[in-house]
């Protein structure tokens, strides 16, 4: 009952705030909402776009559920996505000619997850060995990862002739992930995302590890008294989050762009942080919030075309949602 009231309050406040903002800009909110609707539900093609955003958001958010449960702020998730994409691109460049496409795609997948996990573990090691807060190490590693991507695009992996912001040369068409005729997204990836979601839920419901990380996140001093390894769980959760972030990077490189581009992460790491925060660190609402965010993301692309509005409006609405939720939840808790 309380939860329903919280949700209704959030929806009411954020809708009103958004309408208010739109009216100030001089746009009819009804037009904007119908544009969002058209951009996402009007056709199969549009909805396929939404799914293409939903898949990486869900995968990445699941990883963050583990770190957030431990009380870790894995801001470095952006960099972990980029490293996943770098790993993928490296395999594509060096192995694509040597083996058959399926094997290459498989190796690239493992490489992406591995690099993501290593990048995340670096933050974890800095935390437990040198007491560097994961927010700072994460931010730092994000810059390093971004620099690495840019260096690769403009240096060793530049397009023959001229280096450009549009990224490296596309991967050979043989190693593009196969998509059935007319689908516009891969059913295999969709199944994989659902599988990740299911395994995450299962870990939290049924496994001892899921319980232990919630325990450490809730009270690390009591965890110590109960003989639960704190540092070990930090590293493991970071590695799992990095693994899934790497998977997100793989998706971006292999399904969406077919090459390495500077903005390869599409900010999905930061967006996933918002998804999980909005979900109040629980797994149940994650797929639905990810769907809402994906719709806002895709729908906002329509805005410049039909209403001459900037597409960043989608981001504004996402921001309003998260801030209202946090505000309302904390207000409820305090009163």
């Amino acid at each position, binding site marked *: 009952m309380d939860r329903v009231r919280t949700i209704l309050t959030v929806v009411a406040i954020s809708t009103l705030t958004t309408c208010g903002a739109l009216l100030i800009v001089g746009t009819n909110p009804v037009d904007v909402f119908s544009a969002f609707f058209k951009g996402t539900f009007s056709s199969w093609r549009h909805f396929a776009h939404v799914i293409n955003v939903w898949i990486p958001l869900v995968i990445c958010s699941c990883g963050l559920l583990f770190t957030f449960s431990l009380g870790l702020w894995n801001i470095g998730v952006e960099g972990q996505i980029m490293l996943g994409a770098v790993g993928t691109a490296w395999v594509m460049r060096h192995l694509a000619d040597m083996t058959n496409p399926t094997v290459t795609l498989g190796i690239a997948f493992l490489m992406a997850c591995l690099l993501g996990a290593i990048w995340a573990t670096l933050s974890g090691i800095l935390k437990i060995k040198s007491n560097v807060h994961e927010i700072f190490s994460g931010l730092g590693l994000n810059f390093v990862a971004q620099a690495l991507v840019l260096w690769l695009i403009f240096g060793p992996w530049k397009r023959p002739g001229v280096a450009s912001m549009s990224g490296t040369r596309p991967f050979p068409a043989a190693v593009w992930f196969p998509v059935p005729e007319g689908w516009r997204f891969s059913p295999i990836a969709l199944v994989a995302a659902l599988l990740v979601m299911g395994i995450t839920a299962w870990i939290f419901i*049924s*496994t*001892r*590890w899921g*319980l*232990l990380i*919630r*325990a450490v996140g*809730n*009270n690390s*001093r*009591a*965890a*110590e*008294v*109960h*003989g*639960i*390894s704190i540092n070990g769980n930090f590293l493991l959760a970071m590695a799992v989050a990095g693994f899934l972030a790497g998977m997100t990077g793989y998706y971006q490189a292999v399904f969406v762009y077919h090459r390495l581009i500077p903005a390869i992460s599409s900010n999905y790491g930061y967006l996933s942080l918002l998804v999980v925060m909005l979900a109040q660190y629980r797994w149940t609402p994650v797929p639905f919030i990810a769907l809402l965010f994906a719709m806002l993301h895709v729908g906002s692309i329509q805005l410049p075309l039909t209403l001459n509005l900037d597409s960043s409006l989608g981001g504004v609405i996402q921001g309003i949602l998260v801030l209202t939720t946090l505000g309302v939840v904390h207000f409820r808790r305090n009163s």
Partner: protein
Amino acid sequence: MNVILRNIHKFYGPVHANRGISVTFREGTIHGILGENGAGKSTLMKILAGYTPRSDGQILINGAPVDYSSPGEALKYGIGMLYQDPLDFPALTAIESFTIGLPETPICLPSKHFVKLFEELTRRFHFSIRPEIPVEYLTVGERQQLEIMRLVAAGAQFIILDEPTTGISIRQKEILFDALRQLASSGRTIVLVSHKLEDVVNLCSEVYILRQGKCVGHVAAPFSKAELLEYMFGQIPPPVSRCILEKGATVLWMDRVSASWKKTTMIRCSFRVRQGEIVGVAGLEGSGQETFLRVAAGIATPHEGDLYLDREKVTGRKRSYFKNRGIYFVPNDRLAEGLFPDLSLMDHYAIAFGGSSWLIPWKTIEELARERMETFSIKGQVVSKAAGLSGGNQQRLLLSLLPANPRLLLLEDPTRGLDVESATWIWKYLQNLAQKGTAIVFSSRDLDEVFAVSHRITAFFEGRIALDAEVNTTTVDEVQKTIAGLFRE
């Protein structure tokens, strides 16, 4: 001023903490509110002080109904409360902390007017706090004194004290009680919340007794202790006595260990405990017994000396190693160090008894949880959060998480803040463990408790073990002198 609470109800979710309580507090009188833990005393007082909103009922001040929703507003009506942990500012000096809590705080601190007021109040109540001393150096008793002065200066006509005698010395208690009598004779209304019969009998002129959220009795002085106890519990609990010791092999041996934990240190302590033995550790707060217990539990690591478990050297091992060898620790601050506040009781049992299997057998755990909660009479649901339990129930929960036969049990203030009945129950349980061979080492601020149950007593002073004696060879007086540092004379 006269305050009437009429038919007060309070619900915390499904918990009905106050069930229609009606009480009257008369001007110039010291009232007692007596009741065991979880009886609803603190809830009622928090409602009166504006800290918690009531679910139903009325508050009347001098006959007129009033409404307020914060401690600040309550203070405007003249109602002030002294909490178990005083609400002051450790980083400031006494005079700053005093001034900042007053309604008409000046912009630049501290002005002469307030220093004068401060000194006047200390003289009046025979307190001995200097204005410029930092609050973090004050003892709990002195911080209470500071808070009382602040409330009086802020114009409180009605002062509530929640368990004020926990953790303060006997001398400070006398000073506190004198000050309260003085306040009452100057026309203020005082309410003392306590589960300590002694305090209530010595100080109050009338007492309301709460049990399970209801007001079950109203008695005026002179009191009969037996009558009060019967109101509180329905029956009189028998006192605890020492159990017979059959000494076994040495379980833990510390050889000249030095270590520190937080701000407290222990210096070159040697100690030995045998199977079935109950050792009471005495010492003023911060004397080193905190570190001592944590070293024995494997939470703090010695930087000098060695630690042996059953003759095996375990210096520098992890806590999990100690735990696997059957060494358990029950800390003083239950919510901060012992329990997971937002996890359910069932989660706690799964952590403690889930074993090392990957999957949690939730069915078995739920059965086990129900059974344990029944045995330890924990009032709550398997799905309730640990933070929602009362202090006594939290302690029972902690004990119910221990295995049936620990090798060594280390407890810090095991009966802190518990009523007589809960404390008796807990000691019966612990003595039963000792009879089966568990070695028990516990610290306590209550020397009577230490003497009642221990076979041996160890006293700390400034990080060193200043006394280690069989209970028959020492006296309360000697231990008191030792922990106060008078043994040197």
